[in-house]
């Protein structure tokens, strides 16, 4: 009697989840594959099966490779320094500190600011003529940089926005992991006379490797989806081309341009699939890279 009641309750209590998640989460994910196999106009609907046609065109599309290159470039420029900085910051926060919560909160603050606001503010900071960044470069005797039109410079600018928003967040994840490292390991290192630096790299970092792997995977998935920062960095509007020469158009922006600018839903769905395959592959690759780091425990 009790078993049946419990079963029924189990299904009833999870039902809202199945229904909502099924219709708005899982179904779209699967249906993307079907749309990608068709010529599909976003408004007019299915206009004919094309098999792998969209993918064939996509693999010859120079704009696609451009967006892929930009995405990977911005991802690397933002993630590598960011995670290293987060590691250092976590080490600082791991020391006995006065006003502990205040410091933790201040590094987390950027993370609660919306990407839109971040992009608007940084777009002004990186303005060519009157921006604060170029003004500061001038103070130390450097030439102003044209942050929007130069490909590399625009990637750096977008990466700085990403780093600003996420470094503190990752530092707190590392900090949480560091605090569960057993004290005995540190005591042993101290007895051996290891320096602080040595202890950090030989004990702390290997001990928190699972967390590092986690942040790498999450950053990879997030980084390859990058949209708002470059989209709003483009002062020519929000059509998603990422600058006059597409110098900072990311894959997500290209998906947006094709799907919601040109209404080519089939093509955009194909981009979505390749985006997914890349992020899955990349995440897996990075994950195994981190696992292999330092000999693998």
């Amino acid at each position, binding site marked *: 009697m009790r078993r049946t009641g419990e079963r029924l309750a189990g299904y009833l209590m999870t039902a809202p989840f199945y229904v909502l998640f099924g219709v708005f*989460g899982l179904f779209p994910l699967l249906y993307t594959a079907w749309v990608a196999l068709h010529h599909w106009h976003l408004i007019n609907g299915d206009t004919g099966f094309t098999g792998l046609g969209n993918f064939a065109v996509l693999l010859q599309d120079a704009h696609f490779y451009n967006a892929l290159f930009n995405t990977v470039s911005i991802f690397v420029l933002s993630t590598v320094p960011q995670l290293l900085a987060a590691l250092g910051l976590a080490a600082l926060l791991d020391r006995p500190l006065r006003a502990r919560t205040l410091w933790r909160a201040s590094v987390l603050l950027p993370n609660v600011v919306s990407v839109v606001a971040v992009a608007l503010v940084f777009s002004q900071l990186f303005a060519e003529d009157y921006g604060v960044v170029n003004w500061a470069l001038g103070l130390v005797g450097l030439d102003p940089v044209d942050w929007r039109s130069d490909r590399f410079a625009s990637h750096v600018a977008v990466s700085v926005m990403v780093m*600003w928003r996420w470094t503190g967040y990752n530092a707190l994840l590392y900090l949480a992991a560091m605090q569960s490292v057993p004290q005995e390991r540190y005591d042993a290192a101290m007895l051996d006379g290891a320096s602080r630096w040595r202890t950090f790299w030989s004990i702390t970092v290997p001990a928190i490797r699972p967390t590092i792997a986690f942040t790498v995977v999450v950053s990879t998935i997030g980084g390859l989806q990058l949209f708002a920062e470059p989209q709003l960095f483009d002062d020519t509007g929000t059509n998603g081309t990422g600058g006059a020469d597409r110098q900072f158009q990311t894959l997500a922006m290209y998906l947006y341009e094709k799907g919601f600018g040109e209404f080519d839903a089939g093509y955009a769905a194909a981009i979505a699939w390749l985006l997914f395959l890349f992020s899955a592959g990349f995440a897996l690759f990075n994950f195994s890279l981190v696992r292999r780091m330092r000999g693998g425990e």
Partner: protein
Amino acid sequence: MAARERTGFVVYGLLLAVGIASIFPLYWSFVVSSKDNSALGETTPPLLPGGNLLENVGKVFETVDFWLAMQNSLIVAGTVTVSNVLLSSMAGFAFARLRFPGRDSLFLVVIGTAMVPAQLGVIPLYLVVGELGWYGRLEAVIVPGLIGAFSVFWMRQACEEAIPSELLDAGRVDGCSTARLFWSVAMPAIRPQAAVLAMLTFMTAWNDFFWPLIVLDPNEHPTVQVALSRLASGYFTDYSLMLTAATLGVLPVIVLFILLARKVVDGVMRGALRG
């Protein structure tokens, strides 16, 4: 001991530098909000606030219907938050504490899809929302967000950790229904975790951009983020206006953050809040 104190000084110095870097863009946004647009054209950028704040705020409300945007964001984020907490507490409780066939494989689906980029499903989601006749309406943003894999995962964790088994068993022996067990035993026990989830969900919903931009009409029923993006899209070049709006849009979340800083920090340190 002396050496230790000196290190302490360096550590605080570095942390202070990081803190300033964290706050500066927000501070600068506020400075520009309080200036006339022409101040931005000066060779030395303004670093101290001026006296135009109220005037700029007034202009924001004249240029775009910012009240409407704020109201919409509040409706969206509020509904999504309440629903996520309620529905995912229920689902989390069932996944953690009830036995029913298919439970574990269903939960695996939750975890699996949480790792898939949302952008993969965005085209079909748009088609689904169109079938339902929701283009441009708040339902399009609210309903798909009513529950999320992350929320379910979070509350399942909470139900496993925070509900004493003895209490559940005692309730069962006393003949409590499952609904009663959930409401009177589980809910009080998981309240702290539910509160943290509520905050994180509210912030994420308030800040959401990609999907609202696609499905909402910036002129009809924008959320704050969509309204902001319209101010930045080249129709307007008044930067002080733009940053005033950005400051206003960030304000509610910042206030929430300052009030609940300790809880947000704890929530994140438990591995929460995805991007």
